[in-house]
């Protein structure tokens, strides 16, 4: 089983030099801590910042400089500020190379639900619907099952959809899955996890072809 940090670390292996990357709140944010050495990625924050740096020190804090999670951040050399319309222009026109998001549910067609639970207070989709409708490359970072043990990888979403056919890859505590026209293709297993464990935790159509390697770090 992978920890949250390991899920992030595995996703970080997908980064390529020069990638513009948008990281959602939660596990996705941790991906920034595992950027492989020798490559440079540029973090986009949809409130209007390209080139997000680390959190500030106490003395660096600037109330006018936050990320999309409303956290105080810093900038780097080459960073740039812009307005929200320009920010989503970048996103919708496909210039963001990789988007990493959390999800409540994903189905085997790549549809994602991550914004609303009927009966609960709905906070809103923020920029998620724009991101999932636009990005060419969307990786979902999440636990394989929910708190009551039910699969989050489904044949049919039970929650309101955020976007259709957009998820390309899922990294969970159990495994790495590619979402293809065939369904959930199992690609890598977490340490100590068997194909059977994944099968049992996956409600949607799971494809297992040949040997499935262990996740490497």
């Amino acid at each position, binding site marked *: 089983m992978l920890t949250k940090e390991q899920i992030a670390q595995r996703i970080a292996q997908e980064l390529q030099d020069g990638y513009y990357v948008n990281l959602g709140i939660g596990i996705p944010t941790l991906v920034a801590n595992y950027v492989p050495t020798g490559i440079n990625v540029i973090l986009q924050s949809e409130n209007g910042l390209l080139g997000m740096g680390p*959190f500030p020190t106490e003395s660096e804090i600037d109330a006018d400089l*936050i990320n999309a999670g*409303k*956290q105080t951040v810093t900038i780097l050399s080459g960073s740039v500020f812009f*307005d929200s319309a320009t920010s989503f222009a970048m996103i919708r026109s496909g210039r963001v190379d990789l988007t990493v998001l959390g999800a409540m549910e994903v189905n085997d067609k790549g549809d994602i639900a991550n914004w609303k639970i009927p009966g609960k207070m709905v906070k809103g989709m923020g920029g998620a*619907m724009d991101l999932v409708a636009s990005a060419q490359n969307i990786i979902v970072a999440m636990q394989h099952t929910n708190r009551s043990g039910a699969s989050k990888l489904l044949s049919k979403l039970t929650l309101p959809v955020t976007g259709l056919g957009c998820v390309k890859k899922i990294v969970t505590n159990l495994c790495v899955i590619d979402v293809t026209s065939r369904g959930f293709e199992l690609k890598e297993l977490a340490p100590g996890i068997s194909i059977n464990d994944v099968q049992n935790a996956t409600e949607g159509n799971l494809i297992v072809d040949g040997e499935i390697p262990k996740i490497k770090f």
Partner: protein
Amino acid sequence: MNKVVKNADDAIQGIQDGMTIMLGGFGLCGIPENSISSIVKAGIKELTCISNNAGVDDFGIGLMLQSKLVKKMISSYVGENAEFERQLLSGELEVELLPQGTLAERCRAAGAGIPAFFTPAGFGTEIAEGKESREFEGKQFIMEKAFDSDFAIVKAWKGDTDGNLIYKATARNFNPMMAMAGKITIAEVEELVRPGELDPNFIHTPSIFVDRIFEGTDYEKRIEQRTIRQN
């Protein structure tokens, strides 16, 4: 013609009960603090507010909610706010949620004389219900319309007395599009300077979009998520 008004109380003249207003800002960053205070003081009610967020319990638009001045919020993300949740669940408050990019683009469209446009955001979701959808080059989009707001209230870092504005860092966010979009646009600035003091090559909002401007006071600039690293 003089666009400069003395303070927020003067700037908000003409905003009436039942109107639709836009308020700049993302979270508590770049919000028109002075104008919000004056609206609360004036008790202008039944307002429809277009703003990306709804503030926190005791700051930003949260102050307007406390005073029960808001009939409807049009936002992309809300609810860092217990009073908001209470009013919503009790049916006192209406909420329309929109994708953040759609919110930004509907402001920009209003300010650009574009009555409608197509966006992929929300296609296939409940956001698309009742909206026209259409395929372009094999991909599905929904049609979204320009906002129609009576007033837009924005917060800038510096402005000149002609109405030119510059914003600081991520406090820019929705402010430039909203400045374009209001039938009447009010700008509050941290520092009001003379024309010519801002470099004409680096102005974010050209004067033509701004109708009233004033230098605000006592900016609190509250931080919502104070995150630091140890050095």
